C-alpha cells in the first residue's frame, strides 16, 4: 500500500499549524497543560510523515517533485506560487527538523510543566515548526522568505517568553532586529534574482545560472553575497552573531530546538540549496568560507571562558555553524548538510541535557555545580556521549561530519582554512571537556544545590536517550565510508557543486591521514582539559591569571556587545533624536513662523483702523488724489502704457 506519501507533503507543516491554532484559541481557558500533549502528538504525526517522505524519496532516487497549492502573488510578469519542492535535500531537512522537534516537544512537556504560560509556549513552538518546514519545503525564494521571517518571529516570541523580566524581551528584540538586517540582504537577493532570471522558483533559476554567469558575473556575485548576508543574520555568523548567546534567555527547549538544531541551520540550508548559484559566484564562495572559518575560531575562543552552561553551548553552536559555512565555502555542500544533520542531534541533546541539569538545580552557572554525575546518571551519560560527538571523537557522529569538512578544506586547496578548522577542533574538544568536568565531575561546590539535584522524570530522559542514539549512530549510518557514504550518494543529484565534484575514486590514504590529524588534535584538547580540570595540575585560576589581558578580552566577548549595544544603538538613537528635533523645530518651526508672520501682518493692519473718522476721510481723499494723478497722467500721455 504505497500511498502517494509525497503528495501529502503539505500535511507535514499542516499538522503543527493546526495544533498551534487549536492551542492558541483554546489554550488559555481550557487546555492549559493539555496543550503540550496536543502539540507533541501533532509533532509525532508530522515526524512519522516526514520520515516516511524521506524514505519514499530515498527509494525513488533522484526525484524532485513540486506540489503546488495556489498562486500567491501574480502582478504583471511576476508570478509566485505557494508550492512545495520535495527532493533529497528538502527531504533530509524535513526528516531532521520533524524528528528533533518531536523529541524536544516531548521533553518540553516535562520542562515547562509548572510554567503558567505553558499554553503560549505550546502555541508558538508548533507554529515555529510549521514555519521552519515552510522554509525548507518552499520551491521559490519568496515562499522561503515567508518561512525565513516567520521563524525569526517565533524565535522573537519564544526568547521573550518570560516577558516580565527585562533581559528576555531585550534579547528578543535584539534577535529580531539582527535577523531583520539579514533579511534585508535576503530581500535584495530575491528581487535581484527575479530581475536577472525572470522567476524565483529554483527549477527555473538554477539551469540559467551557468549562462548568466558568463554575461553578468558581477550580478551573480552580488546576488550570492546578498543571500549570504541573509544567512549570516539567520545563522549567527560574524558580524550578526551576538544575538544568539543572548537568545539563551529563552526557555532551554527553545534554545535546543531553535537556536541549535533548526532555525540557525536555515542559513546553511539556503547556501546549500543555492549551491549552483554560489558555485559560479566566484569571490562570494571564498567570502563564505573565510567568514565560516573565522566565526568558528572566534566563537570557540569565547566559549573557552564562559561560565554559563547555555552560553558555552551557544558559542559552540556559532562555531559549528561556522564549520558548515566553511564546508559550503570550499565546495563541499554535502559535508555541510551532513554536519548539519549530525549537529542537530548532538547539539539538541547537549542543550536538553543542560536543560535537565537546570531543571534539577535551578542553576545555570557551572562554577556552582560539580559532581552531578552520581545524582543524574542518565543525563550524565547522554551528555558525555553528545560531548564526545561534539569533540569529534570516533566513532561518534561529530567525528565523521566535522572531519569530512576539515578534510574537504584541505583537498580543495585551502590549507590555511584547514589549519583553522583543526585548531578550532582542538579548542572545541577542550571546552567540551571543561564543561563536562565542571558540571558533572569533581566535588560538588554548592552542597545545597547538590542535595536538591535529582534525575529528571522519564518524559525528559527518554528524549535524551533517543537523541543519544542519533548522536552516536547518525555519523556511521549516513557518512560511512567517508565521501561516499549514504548521504553523499543521496544528495549527489540535487546539491552537486560542479566545481568540486571529484570524478575519480576518493583516495582513501589522504582521507585517513587527515582524519588522523583531526582526531589527534581532538585528543590533545581533551588531554589539556582533563589535566586542567580533573588533575588541577595547571590550575585554571592560575592559567587565567597568567594569560591576564587575553582572558579579560575573551571574558568580555571581545567587547562586541558593548560596541553593538552602546555605540550603534545609542548613536542611532542620537541621530534619530536629531531628526525628530529637526522635524519638530525646523519644519514645524517654519510652519509656525509662517502663522506668526500672518498674525504680525494682521496686527499691523489693525493699527490702520484708528477709529478717527478724519483719518478715513483722509485716506479717501488720498485715494482720490492718486486717481486724479494717474488718470491725468494717462489722459495727457505722460504715463502711456
Amino acid at each position, binding site marked *: 500500500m504505497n500511498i502517494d506519501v509525497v503528495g501529502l507533503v503539505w500535511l507535514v507543516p499542516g499538522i503543527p499549524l493546526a495544533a498551534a491554532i487549536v492551542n492558541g484559541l483554546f489554550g488559555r481557558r481550557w487546555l492549559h497543560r493539555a496543550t503540550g500533549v496536543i502539540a507533541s502528538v501533532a509533532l509525532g504525526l508530522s515526524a512519522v510523515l516526514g520520515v516516511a517522505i524521506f524514505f519514499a524519496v530515498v527509494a525513488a532516487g533522484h526525484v524532485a517533485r513540486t506540489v503546488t497549492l495556489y498562486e500567491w502573488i501574480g502582478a504583471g510578469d511576476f508570478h509566485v506560487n505557494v508550492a512545495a519542492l520535495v527532493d533529497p535535500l528538502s527531504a533530509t531537512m524535513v526528516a531532521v527538523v520533524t524528528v528533533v522537534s518531536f523529541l524536544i516537544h516531548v521533553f518540553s512537556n516535562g520542562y515547562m510543566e509548572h510554567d503558567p504560560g505553558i499554553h503560549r509556549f505550546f502555541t508558538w513552538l508548533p507554529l515555529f515548526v510549521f514555519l521552519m518546514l515552510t522554509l525548507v519545503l518552499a520551491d521559490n525564494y519568496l515562499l522561503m522568505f515567508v518561512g525565513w521571517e516567520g521563524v525569526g518571529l517565533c524565535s522573537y516570541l519564544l526568547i521573550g517568553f518570560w516577558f516580565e523580566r527585562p533581559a528576555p524581551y*531585550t534579547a528578543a528584540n535584539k534577535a529580531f532586529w539582527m535577523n531583520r538586517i539579514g533579511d534585508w540582504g535576503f530581500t535584495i537577493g530575491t528581487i535581484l534574482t527575479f530581475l536577472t532570471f525572470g522567476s524565483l522558483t529554483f527549477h527555473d533559476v538554477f539551469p540559467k545560472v551557468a549562462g548568466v554567469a558568463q554575461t553578468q558575473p558581477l550580478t551573480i556575485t552580488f546576488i550570492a553575497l546578498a543571500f549570504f548576508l541573509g544567512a549570516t543574520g539567520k545563522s549567527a555568523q560574524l558580524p550578526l552573531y551576538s544575538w544568539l548567546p543572548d537568545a539563551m534567555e529563552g526557555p532551554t527547549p527553545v534554545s535546543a530546538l531553535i537556536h541549535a538544531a533548526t532555525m540557525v541551520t536555515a542559513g546553511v540550508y539556503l547556501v546549500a540549496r543555492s549551491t549552483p548559484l554560489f558555485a559560479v559566484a566566484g569571490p562570494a564562495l571564498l567570502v563564505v568560507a573565510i567568514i565560516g572559518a573565522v566565526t568558528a575560531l572566534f566563537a570557540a575562543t569565547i566559549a573557552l571562558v564562559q561560565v554559563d552552561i547555555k552560553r558555552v553551548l551557544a558559542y559552540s553552536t556559532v562555531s559549528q555553524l561556522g564549520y558548515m559555512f566553511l564546508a559550503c565555502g570550499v565546495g563541499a555542500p554535502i559535508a555541510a548538510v551532513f554536519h548539519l544533520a549530525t549537529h542537530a542531534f548532538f547539539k539538541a541533546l547537549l542543550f536538553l541535557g543542560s536543560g535537565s541539569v537546570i531543571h534539577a538545580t535551578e542553576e545555570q552557572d557551572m562554577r556552582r555545580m560539580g559532581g552531578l554525575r552520581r545524582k543524574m546518571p542518565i543525563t550524565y551519560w547522554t551528555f558525555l556521549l553528545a560531548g564526545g560527538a561534539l569533540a569529534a571523537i570516533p566513532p561518534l557522529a561529530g567525528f565523521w561530519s566535522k572531519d569530512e569538512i576539515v578534510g574537504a578544506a584541505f583537498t580543495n586547496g585551502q590549507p590555511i582554512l584547514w589549519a583553522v578548522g583543526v585548531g578550532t577542533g582542538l579548542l572545541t574538544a577542550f571546552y567540551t571537556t571543561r564543561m563536562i568536568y565542571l558540571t558533572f565531575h569533581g566535588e560538588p561546590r554548592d552542597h545545597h544545590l547538590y542535595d536538591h539535584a535529582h534525575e529528571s522524570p522519564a518524559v525528559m530522559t527518554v528524549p535524551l536517550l533517543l537523541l543519544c542514539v542519533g548522536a552516536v549512530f547518525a555519523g556511521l549510518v549516513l557518512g560511512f565510508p567517508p565521501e561516499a557514504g549514504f548521504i553523499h550518494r543521496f544528495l549527489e543529484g540535487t546539491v552537486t557543486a560542479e566545481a568540486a565534484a571529484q570524478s575519480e575514486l576518493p583516495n582513501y590514504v589522504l582521507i585517513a591521514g587527515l582524519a588522523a590529524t583531526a582526531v589527534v588534535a581532538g585528543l590533545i584538547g581533551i588531554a589539556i582539559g582533563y589535566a586542567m580540570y580533573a588533575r588541577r595540575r595547571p590550575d585554571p585560576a592560575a592559567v587565567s591569571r597568567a594569560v591576564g589581558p587575553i582572558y579579560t578580552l575573551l571574558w568580555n566577548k571581545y567587547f562586541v556587545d558593548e560596541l553593538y549595544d552602546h555605540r550603534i544603538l545609542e548613536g542611532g538613537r542620537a541621530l534619530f533624536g536629531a531628526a525628530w528635533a529637526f522635524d519638530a523645530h525646523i519644519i514645524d518651526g517654519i510652519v509656525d513662523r509662517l502663522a506668526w508672520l500672518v498674525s504680525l501682518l494682521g496686527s499691523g493692519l489693525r493699527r490702520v483702523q484708528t477709529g478717527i473718522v478724519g483719518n478715513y476721510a483722509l485716506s479717501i481723499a488720498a485715494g482720490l488724489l492718486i486717481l486724479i494723478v494717474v488718470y491725468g497722467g494717462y489722459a495727457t500721455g505722460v504715463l502711456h502704457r
Partner: protein
Amino acid sequence: MIFDPPILPSVLTLLLVIPLVGIVPLLAFVRDARAAKQIAIVTTFVELVVSLIMLAQFRVGEAGFQMVESVPWLPSLGIRYEVGVDGISVLLVVLTTLLTFISVLYSSGGAIKQRVGEFMIAFLLLEVGMVGVFVALDLFLFYVMFELMLIPMYLIIGIWGGTRRVYATLKFVLFTLAGSLLMLVAIVAVYLNSGPAGSRTLSFPDLIAGPTRFAPEFQVWAFLAFALAFAIKLPMVPFHTWLPDAHVEAPTAGSIVLAGILLKAGGYGLLRFALPLFPIGAQVWLPIIIVLSVVAILYGAAVSTVQKDLKKLIAYSSVAHMGFVTLGLFVLNTQGGVGAVLQMLNHGVVTGALFLFVGIEYEKTHRRQIADLGGFANHWPLYTAFFGIFVLASLGLPGLNGFVGEFLVLLGTFRYGGQPISGLLWGPLAAIGVILAAIYLLWMFQRVMYGPVREAYKALPDLTPIEVACAAPLLALTILLGVFPQPVIAIIQPSVERMLALAGATVTVAVH
C-alpha cells in the same frame, strides 16, 4: 463577479445618498444620544452592505470605469455629475465604508460622551465626502468632495479632540486647504485648456479619451499643482507636520478614519488624476518625488523611533508607509503601481486597527505616553494578541498583508532604471525602511506590552465584546490579504496598468 446583470442600478449615487438620508433623522434626535448612536450604526451598516453589493457587481479584470452615471450638473460650464469606479477605487470605497462603520460602532461604545448627535452627523457627512472622492470622475465634483471631507474632519478634531485640538485642527485645515486651492487653480486651468470654447469639459473619461490635450509646459505646472495638493494630503515629507498633531488630538474614531482613508485620497488622487492627465509633467517631476518618497520612508521611520507619544509614533509610521505608496506610483511599472494600491489598502486596514487599539487603551488608562505604560501582556492577553498581529502586519511580516504591498513596491523600485540614479540605489535604501519599521514598532510593543505588571492597570478589563467586534473584521482582512492577495490583485492590476500606460509607463500587459 457575482451579479452579472447588476441588481442595484446607480449604486454609486445610492452610496452618496444613504449617509445624507441618515442625517435627516439624526437632526431630529440630535439630543438623544442613544437614538443617535443607533441611527448612525444602522446607516453606516447599510452603507457597508450596499458597497459590498457594488463590489459584487464589479466585473473583475476590466480596466475601464464601471457603473458610470453621468448627468449634466452645470451645463453652462460643461460640468457634469459623473461618478464611476474602476479596479482602483472600488476597493478603496469598500475600505471607506468598512472603516467608517467600525469607527461609528466603536464611538457608540462610550468613546464619545458629549454631543454624540452632532458627532454622528459630522461622521456621516465625512463618509459622503470620502466615498465621493473615490467615485467622482468629474474634476469639479472631485474637488467639491475633496473639500467636503475637510469640514467634518475639522469639527471632529476641533470639538471632540484632545487638549491642543484647536491648534491641531487649524493646522490640519490650513495645510490641506492651501494645497487644494492650488489644485482648484489647476482644475480651472485644465478646464480652459481642455478644448476649443465649445467642447470644454472637466469629465475625466473625456479628458483621457482623446490625444493628450495639454501643452508640455502647461502639463509641468498643472502636475505640480495637483501633486502639491496630494503631497500635502498624503503627506509627503516636507508637508507632513500636520499629521502627528492632527492624530494626537483627534478622537479615536477620527484617527482611524484620518489614517485609514483621508491619507489615501492623496495617493488615489495622484494615480487617478495627476499621472494620467499630465504624463510629461510626471516625467519632469518624477526624480524629485522618488527622492522625497525614499526620504519619507527613512525619515518617517527614523523619527518614529524617538517618539514618546504612542499616537505620534503611529502617525510618523504612516508617513513612512505612504512613502512606499508614492515610491510605488512613481517608478511607473506594473509591480510598483499594484504594490502602491495594495499598500494603500493594507495601510488603511492595519493603521486603522492600530489607532483603534491605541484608542481602546487610551479609553481605559487615559494615558498615551509610552513611558507611563507597560506590562499589559500580563493582564490583557486578548488585547496583546490582536495588537501584536497588527504590529507585525505593520512592520511587513511576510504572510500578513503589509508585506505583499511593500515587496511589490520594492520590486518595482529595483526595476526603475531612470534618472537620477537607477532603482538599484533606491531599492536597498527603501528596504532599510523595513528594518527601521521593525525597530520602532517592536521597541514600542516591548515598552507597552512587556515588563512587570503595573498596579494602576492591573484591574482594567480586557477587550469588551464591542471592541472585539470592531477588531475582528480588520484582523480577518489583515490575515486574508496576506495569504490570499491574488483576488485583490486581479481587481487592481488592469486599472493600474491603464492609468500608468497613460502616464507613459512601460506596462507589460497590453492595455485594453
